[in-house]
């Protein structure tokens, strides 16, 4: 039986016994990227791969063979020095963003306006600020080195981009955490309260363990978005895969027939990394939709 892309969410609404208590719960579609990417049939992917050399040939004729030959020599370097660095940046930014975002998400659900209001401002600001602008601000605002206990610790540019990417990610993860917490029926809070659990015990032992599963798909969605945003770092002089590709093309004489093979290769790298993540996200979402 064919599964329509939007059906799990609709059926889930019917099954939920208690309406989402405060506000919207999770956003109408917090899996937009994973849904779009994960819904691509594998046959399209193979077709796209076949189109890549065809397109290069159509553009530059027999020169394209030459260009692919050149690319072949660069592939190990571009992958090892370039793409793996993008992955490292994305993993570090995601780790920082997740820890920060979890606490911000808890801050969004706290009763104390004194904590909630500044957190709301933080989340709203960093969710809506353009990532590239944030990256430039961090690059310029952060010192090149930090002096701590008499030691001078240099802060390289790529570390700044990790921070610059972690900030908007943390704000979006905060929303994911808030949505997850608020999707748990208030009756669970009441049941815990009637058993004399404190608010903190309820949060960490009863509410959060229940919503980790629900938060996983949107969390992975944000990881895929973050990974695809790491080429932004090339504009800040970080030697990630796009910067290195440009340098490689310069070394090969900067000929126009190099463009499609080289940048196409980068596109394929990102696609091959994010497509399985998106597929996995979708399958997790479907699994939880049936269970709950």
């Amino acid at each position, binding site marked *: 039986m064919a599964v329509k892309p939007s059906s799990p969410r609709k059926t889930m609404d019917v099954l939920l*016994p*208690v309406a989402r208590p405060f506000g919207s719960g999770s956003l109408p579609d917090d899996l937009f990227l994973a849904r779009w990417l994960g819904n691509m049939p594998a046959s399209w992917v193979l077709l796209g791969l076949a189109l890549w050399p065809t397109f290069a040939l159509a553009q530059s004729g027999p020169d394209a063979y030459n260009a692919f030959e050149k690319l072949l020599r660069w592939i190990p370097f571009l992958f090892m020095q370039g793409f793996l660095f993008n992955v490292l940046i994305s993993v570090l930014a995601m780790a920082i963003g997740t820890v920060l975002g979890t606490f911000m998400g808890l801050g969004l659900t706290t009763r104390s306006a004194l904590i909630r209001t500044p957190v709301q401002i933080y989340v709203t600001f960093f969710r809506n600020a353009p990532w590239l602008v944030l990256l430039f601000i961090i690059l310029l605002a952060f010192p090149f080195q930090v002096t701590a206990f008499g030691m001078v610790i240099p802060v390289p540019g790529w570390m700044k981009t990790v921070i610059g990417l972690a900030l908007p990610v943390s704000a979006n993860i905060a929303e994911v955490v808030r949505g997850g917490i608020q999707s748990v*029926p208030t*009756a*669970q809070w*009441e*049941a*815990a*309260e*009637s*058993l*004399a*659990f404190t608010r903190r*015990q309820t949060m960490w*032992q*009863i509410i959060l*363990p*229940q919503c980790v599963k629900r938060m996983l798909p949107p969390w992975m969605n944000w990881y895929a978005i973050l990974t695809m945003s790491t080429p932004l770092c090339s504009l800040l002089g970080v030697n990630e895969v796009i910067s290195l590709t440009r340098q490689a093309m310069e070394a090969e004489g900067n000929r126009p027939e190099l463009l499609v093979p080289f940048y196409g290769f980068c596109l394929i790298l990102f696609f091959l990394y994010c497509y399985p993540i998106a597929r996995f996200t979708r399958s997790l979402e479907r699994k939880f939709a049936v*269970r709950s």
Partner: protein
Amino acid sequence: MTAWTPDQPIIRLRDVHKSFGALEVLKGISMDIMKGEVICIIGPSGSGKSTLIRCINALNDIQKGSIQVEGQEVHDPKLDKLALRRKVGIVFQQYNLFPHKTALQNIMMAPLKVLKEKPADVEARARALLKKVRLEGKENQYPGELSGGQQQRVAIARSLAMQPDVMLFDEVTAALDPETVKEVLITIKDLAAEGLTCILVTHEMNFAREVADHVYFTDKGLIVEDGPPETLFTSAKDPRTRSFLSQVL
């Protein structure tokens, strides 16, 4: 105020008023409930029955009046809520079990984490409670794998694990299939027979008649009439009680 002794009402309500915004749900409720009594509160939907028992457990606050449990004022801001909730357990219409924990873990969680009792003691008690609610062998099932009636009995066992003096039952059979209602009612009857103080909000009139020591009929936030079940069900004085009973019996 003198200390509470068991010959005084274990629960004492005086002129309790409760509003949700402009909507006044309770308009002056007074009750005295003695230790070991089984009380049923009946009445039409929206008459404030559920709100009333939730106030006893401080899940809802009140605007005016007084609620005392064992002589302790429930709505005193200085009240130790932990102490109150150890004394008063509640079972909800929708069971509200913790879905990520097994039946046994659901029962053990509060005594372990809140009362900080020894795991071996808690586990022995939890297994005994599961046996008492006739759910032996379901220890390691998750709530999603149990029927409504089974979940509700786990919920009863979970409340009993805190060893409360009073149990509140908030329409505990209203969400169940007719065939599973009975197994839950039998469990409650066992508890009542053991002398546990029980307050039930219920639509099961035959059950109320059979098990209750005293029945309250509420309508529009007030107690219209109360008395022993045989009197209330056979010779109600108030016309509102009579018309309600004629519709449900």
